[in-house]
Every structure is written in C-alpha cells, then in structure tokens.
C-alpha cells in the first residue's frame, strides 16, 4: 500500500520542514545571517544542498533559499478518495525533508560545537561517540575504498535492534561483506551505535561502523557522503541533480535498514533516499513498494527477519558481495582492517614495543616439487605457551612456486601480508618486512586463534587474489628466537638486492607501461598510465603491481601499453601512450606529458594522494597530501584542489600524484623536477626525510629539504618567498616556469 507510505511520508516531510524552519528562524535571530554555517573541513559546504541545488551555503543567511526550495517541494496532502498520483509528490516530500534536515544538522554545529567528534575514531568511554559529517580527509580516504571496490557499498541503519547481541550480529555480517555501516536515529532513545558499544564492538570509520548521530536527521551525513563521491570522484557538477542522483543509483550501492517502528519522519527520509535509488528494508510490518523503476529493484520491503536482513538487503539493491572464506575461528574481511587493539585488550604482541624480532618474507623456488601447497609449519612456541601480556618473535616465510611465477612478484605478494593479517578480527598488524608488529586480542585467543592460522590466512587469500601467477604456496612460521633471527637475516639480504633492482628500473629502458582504469567505475573518463618512475597517483599501484595485476587478469583494469616513440623525453610524451589515452578517454584527452604539470598533465580521478600546484610568484611548485587539511600557498586546501580537478579532467597548472612519486627521479622533471618544489606540508617532509636527503645529494643540493618551505614558514606565496630567497632555493634561479 504505497498510498499509506505516501500519506505518512508527506506528513513527515511537513513536520521536518516546519521544524527546520523554526530552528532556522531561532538561529537567525540569535546568531544573525552572517554566522558561518558549515560542516567541518569540507570543500563541499552542506553537500546535499550544494550538490543538488548548486547552492553553496556558507553563512546562516544562505540557507534561506534552500529552505524555500524545501517548502516549495512539499506536495498537497493525499485525499482519501479520488486522490491524485502520489509517487512523484512522495519523492519530493522526502527530498524536502532531507534538504531541511541537512540545514538543521548544520545549525547543530553552531549551537552544540562539541556534539559531534571531528575524528575518524570514536572514544565512547569519554562520551565521544557521534562522528557527524566526515571531513574531506576521511571522505577521500574512505571514498577510495568505494572506488577500488574494497567496499561494495554502505547500509544506513536507522533505529535500533531488539538487543545489543542482534545489533552486533548484523554489524558483523555487514563487516564480513566489507559493507560500511552508517548509523543514525534511535528507537525510543536506544541507538544501534550504543548497542554495538554495549556489546563490546569497536565503532568508528576504522571498523567501518560509523555512528553518525542519534537522530534521524543524521541520515543526511550518509547521503552527503554519497553525493560527495559523485562530485569528488565522479566529477559531476554541483547543481546537476539528475546526474548526481543517477550516479548514486548506478555506482554507489547503498541502502537503508529501518529497525523498529517506522514513524512519519522516518518514512519521509526513506522516501528521500529513493531519490538516490537507495531502497529501504524494514523488520516491521510497513507498507511495501515493490514495483521497480526509481530504484533498481524494490523500493520498500517489509517484515524482513533480522537474521536475513543483510542477505535480503544486498539482493534488493542488486549488489553482489563476497565473503572471504578463510578457515580460521575469527571473522574476516576488510572491515576489520582498521580495528585497534589497545593494550588492555591485548593478549600478546610480536615485535613493536616488545622488541622481539619479526620479519615477513615471500620467496619463490623454481622446483614445483619443493612446495607442498597449503602446508603450514610452526616452529617454536604457540599462543598457548605465552602468558597473557607476553610476547613472541615472529618470522613468516612464504614460499611459492609456479610455472608463471616471476621473482618480481615476490614483493607484491609480500606487501599483502600486512592487510591480509589485519583483515582478521582480533588481530592488529602494522609495518612490513622486518619492522612488522602484530597484536593478538584476548577475544581472538578465546575464540581459539593459534599461530598456524596466520599461515592459513596467507595461503587462502593469496591463492584467491593471486592464484593466477603461482601454483603452490606454503608457509613457515618461526616463533623460536634464534630461528626467527636467522630467517630475518636471510630476508634482509634479499631486500637489498630487490630494492636495487626496482630502483634501477627507468622509464627510458622500459618499453611497456601499464594503464590503470580501476577508478573508471567512479570517474568514467579518467585513465592513469603507470610507468616505472611514475607510480599511480593513488599510491596503491606501481608499475610492478600493474604488471602482476595484468598477469592475474589479462582483461582487467591494468593493460599493457607499448609506449611507442618517445616524442619528448624531457616532458615525457610517448606516441603509444597518447593513442591509448585518447581511446580510453573517448577522445577527451589526446596528449599527456608524464613529467609536467604545466603542459598537458595527466588526468586525475580524485583518488590522488597528493596534488601539485603551480606557484607563479615563487617560480615553483607546491604539493599537498590529502592527510593535510590546512590551507596552502595555492590559496586552496587539498579538498578544494581535488574538487576542482578530480573526475578525469586535464587541468594545466595542477596534477595529482602519489606521495612516493615525489622522491622518484622523474618527478615533474619536465618542469624542473624536485628542484622546483618550494612548499610541502611538514608531516609529508618528515615522512620522506631520509629519501629527500638522498635525492638532494643526487641533485647536488644536500640540504634541499631544508630549503623547501612548509606551513610553519607560511601559507601564502608572499609569506614563503622571503624564506626561499634567504635559503637560496634553486627554483628562484631557474627559467620561468611559465
């Protein structure tokens, strides 16, 4: 009975808009029209209003227009007899409610500045549970997982489960499927988020269980996140509401679970979500809307038993999710990657502060018979032999073999060890190679975790993801101190050889580059070309990764490109690369300079780790990484920069690149290279200090790093220029960058 839904939702729309108008009026009287009205650290203003109406709300006074739109959208109430059609009006009422709620949430940031915690992680013990609007840094970092497929979608859970245990079970099932859980609203004061905390589940962006807020209006944070994906990654222009919403319907696989009694205001929000193509599934007996059209499949499905709600939800949304099947006693999936294990929850530790030796090493053998696939050997004491709070050495040696296996793939497989182990609930891993650290939680031990399970994880997952490049794999794990040290020393020798080999690869001596169109699901016209000396701008894919990825899936997003003739060695123009880019971008881009941001730079998908921008007054270049949320001398924050150039466009004067690219020899060499770099955030400088010093030596300016300004020097060109002059920064002596 859609009519009942429509009746309720339209009523709810009126309630919400009317309430919002009251809150707005009071705020206007108290704070005045010039009071700032914003979500924290975002270039997208109040993102739903901005993306759909094209109105950037900056001050309280600006919101008037948007509330007027909301009011005008409210349709007449539905008559009981000979009524007029209500589907369109119902969706309009829902949209009105959502536009109004976003303004209400914006005003909350003025009235109760501490209501929401501006962070990735929560601290419920200290009353910091609600996270509110995600800052752009979080949005970019997390948005990438939607783009690369490691997060298939999100569920907005509204209300509360019957008890904390059921809440935990539902959350766990979504985590297992790698789906983000965005939580809002309450059921008679009880919230799903608090239920999870009560059940001992860690909530926050790091576990993909995001407590947005306790009110239904916090649903706008989820929808705002989705619309930022459309603008930031899809390059859809704010105000182009139809494309924003269709982008979400086709590419952002989100849906709503309404838990508990559904009131008129919830109905309005559910109707609003249908505009996005996001269906609602409820566990109560609400009227259903089954015919398809605005959403891909059903619009509202009722009476879903809670034990089936996850499976039913992904089906209704038309989403295929995979659950990693790893034979261990712990839950497993990307959602558990960010989980923290604090000292109090820890059972034992390897490496880290315990200073025990650790190493992770993937090596290969040519003889297939030498490897017994799936064999896991543990040499030394196991968890059971350690007391609570104790420590163990840990040397993990993975031995692979296969007809197609190449030595070059070893480091790629090795880099997987970190996140593959981290995916297990109850394990926390940091670092890599010989600086790794692993914490095992008490909970994991209680569930029966033993050292052998590390081998089981690596065997199962590496086969699943990289099975195309090797045939057999076995794992040896050493917890015996001397043996572990012995393996570590062997590995260290290999690391030296390996590093030298990769560092010696050059663009000149390599004929085959690789494309990366992984992000085309979100930025349809963007195409990356990855060469040995220009890693992908997301920082996740270097040339070797792309090569392996192609071997694994020959029709996948990484395709070999014969670079063809070198048309300009300095700027990095290659005939073959140009042909490929022209084809893959549907003729939108026909010429690309690999090493220049001034002339025909490479396009950017919005996933970039850093953005370099021209600073004309300093005759140089600045770069900023996405973790840095402050202002920059370009006059724009990272978010604003990414907003102007993401989505697959070519923007001379700007280019996206990876952090690692800064210390690669070809870094913007067409524009003068690293010697042009006049400003970067201090944290980035610190992160790459050692390598930057080394590059300085190579360029004949050993203290180059100290001549580069950062935010402690200044945030405008005027502020940093005296510093550069004083330090005799090389850029000042170079030819005009223009």
């Amino acid at each position: 009975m859609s009519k009942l839904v429509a009746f309720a939702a339209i009523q709810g729309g009126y309630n919400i808009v009317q309430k919002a108008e009251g809150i707005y009026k009071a705020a206007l009287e108290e704070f005045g029209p010039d009071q700032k009205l914003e979500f924290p650290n975002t270039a997208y203003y109040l993102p739903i209003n901005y993306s759909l109406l094209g109105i950037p709300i900056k001050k309280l006074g600006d919101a008037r227009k948007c509330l007027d739109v909301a009011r005008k959208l409210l349709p007449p109430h539905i008559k009981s007899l000979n009524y007029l059609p209500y589907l369109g009006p119902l969706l309009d009422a829902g949209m009105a409610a959502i536009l109004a709620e976003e303004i209400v949430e914006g005003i909350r940031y003025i009235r109760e500045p501490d209501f929401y915690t501006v962070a990735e992680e929560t601290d419920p013990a200290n009353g910091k549970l609600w996270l509110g609007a995600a800052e752009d840094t979080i949005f970019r970092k997390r948005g990438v997982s939607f783009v690369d497929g490691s997060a298939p979608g999100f569920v907005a859970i509204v209300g509360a489960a019957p008890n904390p245990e059921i809440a935990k079970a539902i959350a766990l099932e979504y985590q297992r499927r790698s789906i983000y859980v965005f939580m809002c609203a309450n059921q008679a004061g009880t919230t799903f988020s608090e239920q999870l905390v009560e059940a001992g589940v860690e909530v926050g962006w790091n576990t993909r269980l995001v407590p947005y807020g306790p009110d239904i209006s916090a649903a706008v944070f989820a929808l705002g996140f989705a619309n930022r994906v459309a603008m930031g990654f899809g390059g859809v222009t704010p105000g182009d509401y139809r494309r924003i919403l269709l982008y979400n319907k086709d590419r952002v696989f989100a849906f709503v679970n309404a838990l508990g009694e559904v009131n008129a205001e919830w109905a309005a929000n559910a109707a609003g979500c249908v505009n996005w193509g996001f269906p609602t599934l409820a566990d109560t007996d609400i009227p259903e809307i089954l015919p398809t059209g605005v959403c891909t499949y059903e619009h509202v499905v009722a009476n879903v038993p809670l034990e089936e709600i996850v499976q039913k939800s992904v089906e209704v949304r038309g989403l295929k999710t995979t659950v990693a099947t790893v034979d261990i006693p712990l839950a497993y999936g990307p959602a558990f990657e960010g989980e923290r294990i604090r000292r109090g929850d820890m059972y034992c530790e390897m490496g880290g502060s315990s200073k025990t030796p650790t190493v992770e090493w993937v090596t290969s053998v040519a003889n297939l018979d030498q490897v017994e696939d799936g064999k896991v050997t543990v040499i030394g004491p196991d968890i059971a032999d350690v007391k609570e709070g104790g420590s163990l050495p840990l040397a993990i040696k993975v031995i692979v073999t296969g007809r197609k296996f190449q030595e070059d793939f070893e480091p790629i497989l090795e880099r997987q060890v970190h996140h593959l182990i981290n995916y297990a609930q109850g394990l926390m891993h940091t670092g890599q190679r010989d600086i790794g650290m692993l914490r095992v939680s008490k909970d994991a031990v209680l569930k029966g975790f033993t050292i052998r399970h590390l081998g089981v994880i690596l065997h199962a997952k590496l086969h699943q993801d990289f099975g195309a490049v090797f045939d057999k794999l076995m794992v040896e794990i050493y917890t015996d101190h001397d043996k572990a040290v012995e393996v570590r020393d062997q590995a260290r020798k290999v690391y030296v050889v390996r590093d030298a080999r990769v560092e010696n690869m050059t663009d000149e001596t390599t004929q085959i580059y690789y494309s990366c169109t992984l992000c085309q699901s979100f930025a349809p016209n963007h195409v990356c070309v990855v060469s040995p000396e220009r890693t992908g701008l997301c920082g996740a894919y270097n040339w070797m990764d792309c090569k392996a990825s192609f071997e694994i899936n020959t029709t996948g997003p990484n395709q070999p490109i014969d670079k063809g003739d070198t048309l300009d060695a300095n700027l990095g123009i290659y005939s073959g690369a140009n042909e490929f880019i022209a084809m893959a971008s549907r003729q939108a881009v026909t010429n690309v300079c690999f090493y220049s941001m001034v002339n025909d730079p490479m396009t950017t998908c919005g996933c970039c780790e850093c953005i370099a921008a021209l600073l004309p007054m300093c005759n140089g270049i600045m770069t900023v990484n996405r973790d840095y949320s402050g202002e920059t001398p370009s006059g724009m924050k990272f978010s604003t920069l990414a907003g102007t150039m993401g989505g697959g466009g070519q923007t001379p004067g700007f280019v996206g690149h990876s952090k690692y690219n800064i210390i690669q020899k070809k870094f913007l060499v067409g524009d003068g290279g690293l010697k042009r770099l006049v400003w970067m955030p201090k944290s980035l400088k610190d992160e790459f200090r050692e390598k930057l010093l080394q590059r300085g030596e190579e360029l004949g300016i050993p203290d180059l790093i100290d001549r580069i300004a950062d935010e402690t020097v200044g945030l405008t060109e005027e502020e940093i220029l005296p510093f550069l002059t004083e330090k005799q920064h090389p850029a000042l002596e170079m030819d005009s960058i223009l």
Partner: protein
Amino acid sequence: MSETTNPKVAVPEQVTIDSATIKMLRFAQSKGVETIFDRAVKMKQCNIGTEGICCRICAQGPCRVPLTKGIKEGTEPDNRVGLCGATAATIVARNFIRQIAAGCASHSDHGRSVTETFLAMARREAHDYTIKDEIKLREVAGFFEIPVTEEVDGVQVPRDKWALAVEVGEAALAQWGQQRGSLAYLKRAPKATQDRWEKHDVKPRGIDREVVEIMHRTHMGVDQDYRNLIHQGSRCSLGNGWGGSMMATDLQDVMFGTPYPNTGRINLGVLSRDKINVIVHGHDPLVSEMIVCAVNLPEMQEYARSKGANGYVVSGMCCTANEILVRHGMPIAGDYLQQELAVITGAVEAMVVDVQCIMESLARVSECYHTKFITTMPIAKCAYGKNTVHVNFEEHAALDKAKEILRIAADNFPNRGEVHIPTESNRMVVGFSTEAIKYHLGGTFRGSFVPLNDNIINGRIRGICGVVGCNNARVEHDEVHVALIKELIKNDVICLTTGCSAMACGKAGLLTPEAAAVYAGPGLAEVCETVGIPPVLHMGSCLDNSRILTAATEVVHAGGLGKELADLPAAGAAPGWMSEKAIGIGQYFVTSGVYVMIGVPLAIAGSPEVKRHLEVDMEELYGGKWDYEPDPLLAARKIIQHIDEKRKNLGIDKARERVLLDMSDRQKIEAA
C-alpha cells in the same frame, strides 16, 4: 414506455450502456423529441458508400463499382471500372485519402487558429491571453532551434519570454505554408522512426501543401496508383500528427498551462438546477478558456444573481470539455452523442459551440426549449433555428466576447421551463500530459519514463494501448470503448485515452485511482497503486493524441524497449470512431509505426487491393498497420497478441532475472 417498441425509435438499453443516456433517451422519446439514436434506427447506411466505391469526382458520374458477389481476391480478374476507366482501387484510395485530407485539415486548421492567437498574444495584441507555461515555451523554442538564451555582458541569460514567443509563433505559423524541406517537429520522433520516413520519402514538406496536393492528386485523371495515393495520405497525416496537432497542443499548453493531474466530474448530472448552465462544446479552447476566466469574475457572478440564478456552471461537451477539464477541472456534461440530450434536460441556458462534431440538430432541438444555440466561429455558423445566435469571437476582445456570451445565458435563465436532469455524475482523475507522467514517475529530481519501461520489461505491465476516438451512433454508445479497455487492463495493458473514448471511461468509473484494484490485472494494479494512478490515463482531447506520440517517444528514449515506435509493445485503438479526423489520426499512427485497431470499418472494403495495402503492406513500410474488428473482446485479444509479439521480438517475453553487480560489472557501466 410504449415508445420503446416503436420500430422508428431506438431502444435505449440496446444503444447505450450509460444509465444517464438511457434515462434521457426515454425522456426524449416520451416527449417526442427525436435524437441521433432514433435516426440511426430509421436511416440505413449506404452500402456503396460504406465500401468506398462511389466516385463523385467528375460530372460523368457518380460511378458506382460494387464488388461482384462471390469474387474473391485473386480468383477472377477484377474488371470493375468507372466511366473514365478508374479502377475500384483508385476510386477507393482517392476517397480514402480525401477523408485523410479533411481530417488533417480540421485538426491542423484548429492548430493554425491557435497559432495565430498565440502570435497575437506574443505581440501583445490579444491582451486576454498570456504565457502560462514559460518552461514549455522554452522547450518548444528548442524544437524550432530558436536560441533561448542571449549574451549580456559576457554572460548567457534567458531571453525575454515575449520576444521568444514572437519568434516561436512566427516559426510555428510558417510550418503551414512551408513548401520545401520537412517539418521541424519530425525531429522529435525517435531517430529510427525518422529514418524510416526518410527511406520512404514520406516526410511532409508543409502542413497545407500536403492537403492541397491530395486534392490535386485525387482530381479527375491525375494519380491512378492506389499505393502512390496512399503514400500521399501518409505524408499528409504526418503533417497533422507531428505538425498541426502537436504544435496546437504545445502552444495551447504554453498559453493555457500544461495539464497536470486534477480531479473532475462527468455526465449530465453535473448540470445545475439553480445555476445558469453554460455548455461549451466543440474542440478549440480559445473561446472556452475565456469563458472559464470570465465566469469567475465578481461582475459576472453578480449578473447571474441579478437574474435569479445562484451563479454559473460552465461544463463542457466533446473535446472542448476535455480541454477545460484537464487544465481547470471544469465538469464534463457529456460526449458527442449526448449533446442533444443535454439540451433536452431543459436546464441549459446556452450551448456555446466552436468547431467540429457539432450536430446541426442542436439548432432544432434547442427550438423545443429555451436553450440559446450560440455559434462563435466565423468558419462555423448555423443557418437554422430560432434560438440560434452568432457571437463572433475576436481574439483582441476575447474576454469581452466571453462576458457577452455569459450575459446572453443569464438573460435566458428566467425563460427556463421544466428541467429533467439525471443524477449521474462520476468522479475521475485526469490531465496526464507527457510532462505530468514523467513527473509522477519520479518527482522533481528523478522524473523519467524509466519506471514505466522497467515495469513493462519486468512484465508487471504487458504493454501500452492508446484507446481514442469518437462515439458512433452505429455502434453501442460507450460499450465498445469500455468493454475493450476493461479487457485490456485486465490483461495488464495500461491504457492512454483521449477524446470521447476518455469520456466513456470516465462515465464507467475507469478514470479513478480506485479502479485499478477493481479492474486491472495484478501487475498493472500494483504499478498503479505504487504511483497512485488510474489504470487508464486521460491525456486530453482528440487533438492531444499528439501527446500519445510524444509519450511513446519518451518510452523509446527511456531505453530497453527498442529503437523506434514500431518496436514498442504498444497499439492504438479507435473502437467507435466516426469522423474524418479519426482517419487522419489513425493514418499518422500507422505511419509512425503503430498497430491501429478500429471497431468501425474504413470505407475500403470495395477494393481488396487497398484493404491489403493498409492492413498488410503498411507494416512492411512503416511498422504499423490498420486492423478492423467490431467485437471489442476479440479486438482486445488481437491487440494483446500484437503486444505479445512485440515483447517476444524484444526478448522480454520471459521473466527477468535479478542481476547482482560486483565491482568489475560496475566498471563496465558506460559513462553516464
């Protein structure tokens, strides 16, 4: 009730299913007032004429060439010829396309008068009219490739609506006299449909030119190839469907507002006992719109009271009724066949008519009552009747003329005698323009035809049928429409309706949202319930059949149902047609690729060749064809069979599987 056994009068229960009509027929017969229903009993149809084989084109005739009994097509040589040697095929084809010419001329000339008024309005010479739908004006400008923005100080700003309207009006008017090229609106059709027209060289050059050329080619001794004659009929019909009619609909929408769903009432019961009843009847809304404006003026209400009446009721008949219903929710007194009955209630102070489908008998029937029969158009006067008045409509003084008409009606109120108004009046929801359907399928932000296509593809809706056309005194009033439509919606075929067919649906209660649960199949009912619509959508007047063309085009563009109109699981039907306009409409639907089912035969039976050309060959050429089946249930079966064939061709005859997408599937999604 002894009259009902009289062989010279109609048996009410046998000629209509509408209870108000039955009651009024009995009443009329009791009073000895003759109606069209009675005349249909008395007067037989001419057998020669119904077969189309009477040639009256030159003074050597009329020549009649009846088909020899027993001759089956192809079995024996067909040697029938007229004095000049004209074959039966030539005679039938000439008569047929002359009917097309007349039908197209009627709608298109209506379009011309709307366009002239529109242009006068744009030039500020007709102050009583204005631009009510500026969005549509800008859209229409786009069809004529007229820029809607201009550069001011380096910024593109929207152009002044009045200046834009002048250009639109001039461009539109030029379409009638255009001699070369093709009509601007043809480009609105799906590309593949346009390609077919191009291939068969059937694109009209100008609206008038194609009508004139029919008159030339059917003159004695000119075109003697029935295929070539019908080809010209097709070309002329497109000039109406995608020209005169469509532009008229658009410009009326700009001036009077694009219809959006609205509620209304229908049947003779809408007439009032204590108010002045003014019926506006005909097709052209230029006069009726002004009457609707004028009647709400306090001065007119005051005038009515001064005559002892409690105000006015303005109701409509025929398509003028549909025009004021879909835009203003004004009531409908009745359809074409009920026009005499309205006067017979004795409650009608003024029967105000414009053009088309006005029975001359109104003049005589009005004489029996106090009713003033007011003609308004210089092209449509009536020579007879003591109650007949002509108030010449002038666009520059339109509102004044409307007031004059209302005053005549009010002055006539004291002359009213005994009244006999049946109680029937049904509720309905009407006004489904193409724009309105789009809005209601997704709201302001997501409005599109995609949900309709989606539910056609998934089989909840089996197909679409436009059921349109007149009433015809030779078939049972309303029954043919209602029976056909009930059978279609029972089988999940959603119906779009216009004209007098829409009125039959309204009287039968099919235009209420509640009707879906009662009459529609489970799939269609579910969709109707989701959107809140009746299973039969009232899209306007017979002129507004062009809305069915634009809606069908939107369906093609929404994707998944083929490339051209001929691919759609759709059909058209005119079960009770009678006017030449209906032939013009049918031909433009067929030429656009639509299967058209009629319940009253075309006058073509005298030539098996012409019949085969229209019912078989046309499909080869344009994808659409004519078909005739008088039994509405059998007609529905044939329509459903046709829809099922189209579904099969589209590969949507089987249940669709739910597709679950993973990331690599999503990477393959084309750039939006």
